[in-house]
């Protein structure tokens, strides 16, 4: 794996890059770019995986003109243009899934497929999301996973000063993009029909942040959609069920 940077227009972001083959881009969630996790490793056995850290997150640049998710989506369309990417597989979790969907409803010409892992971006009335901004670190750890051993491990890992600072930066970036309206764009649902590429929607059956019922909105509105629910799994299937999730995504993208 190569840790690199990527400059598009005047914005430089941090990036993990590994593997050879067709390009697969992963867009991370609100907690920021994780390390080089086994999920990435598995995808990179067959694809060239690019995992950028969004503008405003971690050590990536934080341009003042990125003020909402639409700005980030447009930024990634610029990234695809500057890479001259052809037939990319775009994968995103939570906030990253939302960004991917906002990009796809605007322009699918450089995409081969879309894989959304518990994406934010839409709201189901009467089925409240979890309030990640009010949760204590303990509540977050408990609510993000089904398997308590993951929660415990998350809590045991006391962050270094640098890591704590990165976490705070990521919280700032996430709030700017997702605080209001909380984790959704009221307009997105009515434009989901514009996603013209095959789309896989994966959801943890026990997601306490974005409940599984949210998958129904994607099922109903995205034309070429496959919804797959992963049992005994929380909001981060690529972490909690890494092997299975990677296998499902590989099987899907291999076909497109």
């Amino acid at each position, binding site marked *: 794996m190569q840790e690199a940077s990527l400059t598009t227009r005047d914005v430089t972001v941090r990036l993990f890059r590994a593997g050879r083959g067709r390009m697969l881009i992963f867009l991370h969630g609100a907690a920021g770019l994780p390390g080089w996790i086994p999920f990435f490793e598995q995808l990179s056995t067959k694809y060239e995986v690019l995992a950028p850290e969004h503008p405003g997150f971690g050590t990536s640049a934080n341009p003042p003109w990125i003020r909402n998710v639409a700005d980030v989506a447009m930024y990634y369309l610029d990234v695809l243009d500057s890479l001259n990417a052809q037939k990319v597989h775009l994968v995103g979790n939570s906030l990253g899934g939302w960004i991917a969907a906002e990009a796809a409803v605007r322009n699918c010409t450089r995409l081969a497929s879309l894989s959304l892992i518990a994406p934010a971006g839409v709201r189901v009335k009467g089925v409240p999301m979890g309030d990640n*901004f009010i*949760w*204590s670190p303990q509540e977050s750890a408990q609510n993000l996973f089904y398997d308590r051993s993951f929660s415990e491990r998350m809590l045991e890992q006391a962050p270094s000063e640098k890591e704590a600072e990165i976490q*705070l930066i990521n919280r*700032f970036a996430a*709030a*700017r993009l997702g*605080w*209001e*309206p909380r984790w959704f764009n009221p307009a997105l649902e009515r434009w989901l029909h514009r996603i013209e590429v095959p789309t896989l929607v994966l959801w943890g059956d026990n997601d306490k942040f974005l409940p599984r019922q949210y998958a129904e909105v994607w099922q109903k509105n995205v034309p070429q959609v496959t919804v797959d629910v992963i049992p005994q799994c929380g909001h981060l299937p690529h972490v909690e069920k890494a092997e299975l999730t990677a296998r499902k995504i590989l099987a899907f993208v291999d076909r497109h």
Partner: protein
Amino acid sequence: MPYRPLDMAERAKQRSAWVVLPNRLYDPKRGADEYESYIGQLVYAEELGFDVISVNEHHQTAYGMMPAPNLIASALIQRTKRVKIAILGRALPLVNNPVWIAEEFSMLDNLSRGRIIAGFVRGIGTEYHATGLNPAFSQERFQEAHDLIVAAWTRPGPFEFEGEHYNFRYVNLWPRPYQTPHPPIWIPSQGSSETIRWASHPARKYPFLITFSAQDLVVRYLEMYREEARKHGYEADGNQLGWAVPIYVADSDERARAEAARAIESLFNDYLNNPWEMLLPPGYMSLSSMQRTMKVRKSLGTQARRQTIDDLMTSGTAIIGSPKTVRERIKRVREATGFNRLVTMLQFGVLPDELTRRNMEMFAAEVMPHLRRG
């Protein structure tokens, strides 16, 4: 203006007395008594010779019963003659039309024939949970709303306002403010450096009131204001520096301590204590301010244990004692900072009406005259 009949056992089951505290714990009949008691105390302050009485705004909390402080200010105008009335303050970023705030202050200024002091705040962090407003844009909205309100007060209307968050084709205030050019503006704050820098700017020179802080922080933040003023090329006047602090005075130190203990401890532990997630939502302060605040803030925010009256007295977060003790405490901070505006919180936490009034009387008789002499 805390809701004193709060069931503290029920309160203890919640993470905060703000936003998530179930409102079944509010009894309207007792609440009506509370309003009567507090308005009576504020009116009594005029009789005792206070210069200013003040109200403030907080949302969805047992800590304060004034989500709309202008309503209380309006009632106070009708029951007082001379005293200034400070609204400390309205939370500007929380509204989508700041012209309403300009209009309401203007009305109050007319109704009181120029007795209004306009406090501008951003609200505390919990307000952003209560309203859903994005804390990332709090500072921007505050400054832009301020510009709009001052323009509405001073620029001949109608005019057009073109901002980032606020855009209005017509701004044309009826009524215009009674005072010229407009009511004085004060800035209460828990001391974010952005706010201090902004308030001290030569174009504004707004009095800055540091609230709910240990004495070393009070000194530090008031000194920060002076520093910023110097960077702008002027020396801050004592009237630009203020301290808002809970005070309790009784004949002796022992009596003051005994009478104030339960109330001051309830204020900091039951009413004000908030987890970081609620108190400092991301973006509410700049990254560097937030990191600094999380390190230095002991009186607010998550506490490992309950703060005792001794903790609060030792840190100087509250001033409790005989007239002599209280005078000396205030004098010490005054000597260190040269501040000229003291906002006395003479009712706090569950302090009952009778003790509050006695506290006010003692303060007015035994402390205030000494402060006036400087």
